[in-house]
């Protein structure tokens, strides 16, 4: 059971945790990625997220499918923001429940690591003196 959301509205940890709370789930792992106030020491004013939405959904669904295959009886919520985010706001929340903690930890790490490689979502850092798409150029 999977809940995948891409939204320009603030994310809710409670919504993610509620979704994965199941009677057979003994372990719940939640990862939240927040907007940091600096990058390599340089102050960041805000971030702007853009997504290729239909493909972002299908790539997140692939992550969910492979998690259920690797770690049976897991439930997960993957919620990702788009649009303009201020410092401290959650850009992504991944909650995964499993019968035991080991699978919950491993699946959660796998989910965020894979999301960062395969899901077509981009963030632009806005500085006082300019802006840059993260990881785009050397």
């Amino acid at each position, binding site marked *: 059971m999977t809940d995948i959301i891409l939204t320009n509205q603030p994310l809710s940890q409670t919504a993610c945790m509620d979704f994965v709370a199941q009677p057979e789930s003994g372990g719940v792992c939640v990862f939240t990625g927040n907007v940091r106030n600096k990058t390599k020491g340089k102050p960041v004013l805000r971030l702007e997220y853009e997504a*290729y939405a239909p493909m*972002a959904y*299908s790539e997140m669904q692939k992550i969910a499918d492979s998690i259920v295959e690797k770690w049976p009886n897991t439930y997960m919520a993957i919620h*990702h923001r788009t649009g303009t985010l201020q410092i401290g706001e959650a850009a992504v929340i991944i909650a995964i429940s499993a019968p035991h903690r080991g699978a919950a930890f491993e699946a959660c790490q796998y989910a965020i690591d894979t999301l*960062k490689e395969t899901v*077509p979502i981009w963030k632009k850092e806005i500085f006082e003196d300019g802006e840059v798409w993260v*990881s*785009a*150029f050397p």
Partner: protein
Amino acid sequence: MSTTASYTILAFAAAKDILGNSKTQIELPSPATTDSLLKALKAQYPEMVRLNSLRVAVNGEFAEVNQPLTATDEIALIPPVSGG
């Protein structure tokens, strides 16, 4: 006799900035593939070469190397992703 066809390309993030638009028409010699698309783009927009990576998605899936393209495909340029 060589023929060409026009393809609509979606672009995101840094690739969109380089093209100056989220949607661009590009003329490619037939039969077109993802490789001939990338080659043409890099020739027309040299800034594309500077990207750390540039993948092509066809109909919402990352394309294979040298995948054939048809004019009705939804073709998208995927610069390095940075979600999370």
